[in-house]
């Protein structure tokens, strides 16, 4: 601009000095007025911006509020924050966060219910100017809290390290006052020398890490976890060296078995000539921070035993979870305590065998009922695991067994052979993903099947058949008698075939004996006239006669034999007479 002005000035050199001076004055005025414009805006203005990226950061009992400045500058800007609970509508000053020059403040002295929802707001201030409030969404102190590092104290043995963990945030009314016994701890351990091979384990507040080598330096770190989602930061790394190997090692592989009314505790030990001592503790005491070393109790019958096992009554332990440890002693020295084994009494049960009842049913099958004995029913109250039954079923004479595994207590074996003896035995099983347990087999029960409906149906069929066959038999008998009668007692009637061939009477009479005696008619000839008269009378009817005789002949076949024979005889005699 100045250059232009000078150019203008030089070009207007001829314009005169007055205009030149006026122009100069105008430009300088403009320049002076423009300077504050061009320079960056001072804080003295009313455009204060509120802080950005405000964040609440809580670790154990330390409450921190952090933010960023809206515009980076090095001026006298301070920040102040307020808080408000949901019950109270008023905004109260957040202690430790008033007129803060930095970008973070510590309000740990706030005495407030950590489970109550609160809201925060923060603004920038400079003198009398304030930025608008920046509000933080409502939250609970507990919800935002992160778990800090726990404190760890170590003690070395030869092959183990005893750890003693102090929960994070040990203030009495602190963040974790209600949850301190609910923490679970996970530990990472490694040999100081080698880089790899880190072992991770879940540990109790007072616990031991086993399977270590003697005279080795180990390093570890611990973090705490709280259900459902809080995972804490790791503690600093602690290192310790294990001691020289002990003369007497501790017993190993502790097992607890249950038999009827006793418990048998067994363990392994390589050396001889030692006595053992076993102790127990309620498992829940391990979860509580603090010293529980004085709470271990002696197991009866398990003090100064020389064998690697001891037996004690079952009612020593009520239902619950227990820890057992054993140590050896040879008079002079005692070993360290063995690894503590956890036992849940609900897994230490003896399953009693079930009771079977077998019934044979009408349709040639056997029904098997399984029930529990009274004693096992009393126990069932404490052991809610559902039982599965294994049933073995076989024919008494053969060895072929059928096995069925099922949860039901009522079975039917159908379609068996009638009047056969079958035998059944069963045992109870617990099949759970965690453990398997089975009882001994029950007593064998044998039962014979009934005759069954098939023979009955045969009987009915037979009766019906018999009834139906009676008319058949009668008919057959009839035929038989006819045959017999035919052979031994023939009838005197001529068969009809003979009638056809022998139509004339005399021959017939010759061939057959008729029951009637044939008598000849005798004619006494006294007077021929009378005969001729008869003849004449008869001649007039000669044709007629012939016709008649023919007809009589014909009729002789059909009509009465006697009549026809009579007429024929008379006719022949007449013919003889006329000739």
């Amino acid at each position, binding site marked *: 601009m100045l250059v232009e002005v000078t150019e203008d000035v030089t070009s207007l050199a001829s314009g005169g000095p007055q205009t030149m001076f006026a122009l100069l004055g105008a430009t300088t005025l403009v320049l002076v007025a423009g300077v504050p414009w061009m320079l960056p805006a001072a804080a003295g203005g009313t455009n204060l911006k509120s802080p950005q990226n405000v964040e609440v950061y809580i670790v154990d009992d330390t409450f921190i509020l952090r933010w960023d400045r809206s515009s980076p500058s090095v001026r006298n800007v301070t920040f102040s924050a307020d808080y408000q609970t949901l019950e109270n509508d008023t905004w109260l000053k957040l202690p430790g966060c008033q007129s803060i020059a930095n970008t973070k403040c510590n309000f740990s002295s706030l005495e407030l219910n950590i489970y109550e929802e609160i809201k925060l707001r923060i603004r920038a201030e400079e003198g009398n100017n304030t930025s608008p409030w920046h509000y933080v969404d409502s939250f609970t102190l507990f919800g935002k809290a992160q778990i800090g590092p726990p404190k760890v104290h170590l003690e070395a043995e030869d092959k183990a390290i005893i750890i003693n963990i102090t929960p994070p945030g040990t203030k009495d009314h602190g963040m974790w006052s*209600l949850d301190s016994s609910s923490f679970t701890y996970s530990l990472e351990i490694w040999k100081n020398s080698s880089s790899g091979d880190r072992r991770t384990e879940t540990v109790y507040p007072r616990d031991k890490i086993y399977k270590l080598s003697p005279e080795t330096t180990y390093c570890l770190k611990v973090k705490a976890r709280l259900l*459902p989602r809080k995972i804490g930061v790791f503690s600093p790394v602690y290192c310790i060296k294990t001691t020289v190997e002990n003369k007497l090692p501790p017993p190993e592989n502790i097992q607890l078995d249950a038999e009827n009314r006793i418990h048998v505790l067994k363990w392994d030990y390589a050396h001889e000539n030692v006595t053992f001592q076993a102790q127990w503790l*309620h498992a*829940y005491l391990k979860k509580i921070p603090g010293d529980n070393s004085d709470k271990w109790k002696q197991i009866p019958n398990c003090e100064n035993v020389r064998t690697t096992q001891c037996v004690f009554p079952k009612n020593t332990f009520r*239902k*619950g*979870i227990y820890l057992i440890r054993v140590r050896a002693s040879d008079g002079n020295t005692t070993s360290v305590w063995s690894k503590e084994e956890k036992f849940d009494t609900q897994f230490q049960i003896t399953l009693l065998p079930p009771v079977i009842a077998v019934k044979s049913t009408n349709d040639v099958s056997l029904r098997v009922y399984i029930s529990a004995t009274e004693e096992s029913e009393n126990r069932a109250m404490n052991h809610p*695991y559902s039982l599965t039954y294994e049933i073995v079923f076989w024919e008494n004479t053969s060895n072929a067994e059928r096995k069925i595994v099922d949860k039901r207590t009522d079975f039917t074996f159908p379609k068996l052979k009638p009047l056969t003896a079958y035998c059944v035995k069963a045992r109870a099983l617990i099949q759970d993903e965690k453990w398997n347990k089975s009882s001994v087999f029950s007593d064998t029960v044998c039962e014979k099947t009934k005759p069954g409906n098939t023979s009955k149906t045969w009987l009915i069929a037979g009766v019906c058949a018999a009834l139906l066959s009676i008319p058949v038999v009668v008919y057959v008998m009839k035929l038989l008698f006819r045959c017999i009668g035919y052979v031994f007692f023939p009838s005197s009637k001529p068969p009809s075939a003979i009638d056809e061939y022998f139509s004339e009477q005399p021959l017939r009479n010759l061939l057959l004996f008729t029951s009637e005696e044939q008598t000849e008619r005798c004619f006494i000839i006294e007077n021929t006239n009378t005969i001729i008269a008869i003849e004449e009378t008869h001649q007039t009817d000669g044709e007629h006669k012939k016709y008649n005789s023919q007809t009589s002949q014909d009729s002789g076949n059909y009509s009465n034999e006697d009549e026809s024979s009579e007429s024929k005889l008379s006719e022949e005699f007449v013919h003889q007479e006329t000739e």
Partner: protein
Amino acid sequence: MTSRCILQTALLVYFSTTVLAVNYDLLRFQLSSSSVECQNLLLQLNGTTKDCIKDRMNFKFPEEIEKPQQVQKEALLLVTLDIFQKTSDIFRKNLSSTGWNEIIVNNLLEKIHWQIEHLEEILEKIKEEENFTWDDRTLLPLKRYYLRIVRYLKAKVYSICAWKIVRAEMLRSFFFLDKFTNYLPN
């Protein structure tokens, strides 16, 4: 019933118990029997409150939990675990003024712990197997409730009346626990 049919049923039972790793039937049985045993033990502790009328307090058991249909089963389990844990914490505080039988109290703590162990196992299993997104706010109403009880005990200097009132409140919480266990799935 043919042997094939029995085999199929057995296989179904076997596979269903392996696929559904959490056996809710068993859990429900364990929870209700634990609850009954704990209530019986609490009732054995002397708790007549007729002289303690002025110490009576409404601790306001969280209503949201009273309607468990709205809560998912994993959250129900978490709530159940928290109730057992907090009850155990409370009964490990200073009981000297009560004169209660130590054996009964220890028995109560054992039973509570037994159930805590099993619930913790199941919740670990659920965390590994299911993609359930846990909400930290699930437990807030219950934590507020127990904080009221703990503050009350401290304010009353663990007096015998305060303990009797708290004992009655614990019985009440077991009653609600019984209601939730019915809402666990089959």
